């Protein structure tokens, strides 16, 4: 199941083909390097555009959420077996 986290994170990445690709994020002073982005989804909360990035770090699967209006990042959920 996915465990709700909902904590602010810092993200570093690059723009490639007009799309931002995160490559690592900082959570609780831990720098986590993203091995793979498995799915990107654009969703709307009212008129606020948000983008989900599902990413793999080692064996872990994280759902990162980027608020395109406030330009802030959230670690939304984490997969736990």
């Amino acid at each position: 199941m996915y465990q709700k986290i909902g904590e602010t994170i810092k993200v570093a990445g690059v723009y490639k083909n007009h799309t931002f690709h995160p490559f690592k994020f900082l959570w609780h002073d831990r720098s986590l390097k993203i091995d793979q982005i498995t799915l990107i989804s654009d969703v709307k909360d009212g008129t606020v555009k948000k983008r989900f990035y599902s990413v793999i770090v080692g064996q872990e699967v994280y759902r990162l959420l980027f608020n395109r209006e406030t330009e802030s990042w959230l670690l939304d959920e984490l997969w736990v077996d």
Partner: protein
Amino acid sequence: MPEIDWNRKILLVDINSYFATLLQQENPHLRGKPIGIVKDVGRTCIIAASKEAKQLGIATGSNAHQGKLKAPNLILLPAQFDRYLDATKRLKKVFSQISPKTYIYSLDEAFIDVTDCQKYLYHNIEELALTIQNSIKKELGEWVTCNIGIGPNYLTAKLASNIAPKGNSLTITPDNLDGILAEAPFSEVCGVGMRLESKLKRLGITNPYQIRFYSGSELENYFGPFWSKELLKIAYGEETHHFDLLEIPHIQMKSVGRSITGYHLYDDEREIKAIIYNLISEVIHKVRKMGLAGRQVSIFLNGQDQFWSNHTTIKHLINHEQEMFEMIYHQLYRKWHRSFKIIKFAVRLSLLEKIGQNSLLLDWQKQEKVHQALDKVNDKYGLFTLRTGALLNQPIIRPEVTGFLGDRLYQLSNNT
């Protein structure tokens, strides 16, 4: 004799086990495992299953408890409708690059008509199918596979996609059409429901080809004037009325409805009232967003193996939730003496039209001003940010998309 235009080339792309596949694409821990998708945490109806779950006999519509009995390692996960809808929008862009004649048939299916562009762009349709499969993988991920059916019309393309092995394509040609029609069960033929299938079975007809042995008048005696003609078309692989309708451009939705199956049987009037208001709010929000208003309201309630429904048609157009609620709740529901507990609720606003001149009545104008303010806030911050007091302290039923995408005109429009 029936005729098929074999120069036409229609492709039907059907993503395999869409909801579950996207979850498996997202999360490698779920790949190769039986997964059941439920609407939300705590729900028990499996609305979609992974191919691994299907192999274990867990079909869409199964009960989660029964599913667990069949596969104790079944993983139940809540649906993420907005992410599925986004994936469909991404696929729409991919398909539109192949041909301008693209029709999103459901959340996970799309027709692509390449008749006009095949001569110049796509000499080999099977190669095109392979290109589409690769483009989908590139857009959504390696784990996402699809079936592609190719035929001279929508009916045969859909049939080919249904019977093709998972992740493959199948082309219907003049040479294999009769063989396919003689082998395909009716469950794979779009438009033939379970009741019609069992009626056909009673006559000993188990595949479309066998219909050819009956005359038009014999079929009419059994199935009536409409279905006798439709069945004959199916027997020869001709386009049916259902698919002919796809060619007609739909400018606007004719009705907007919303239904919900509750967590339990509802008997408390306060809860029932709130659920009805909640559903009406969503209907009105959608209708107003499309600049429409309707003249007919309907309600359908179901529970304890009983149902009740009613509707009313009025002369003026409605696009205010208070007015729709007044008609549905006070004028229809409250006049009925409820005889059962309710599990399923549905409301609908039909006979939709574009709003012409606004009413001159002061009460109406007052309501409209309130609604405009409500729309402004809810458009910006999300539906139900600002809501009626009737919904306070009640769990909010939020909008969701359905697999068959009945509201595709709304969901795929640019302003949603």
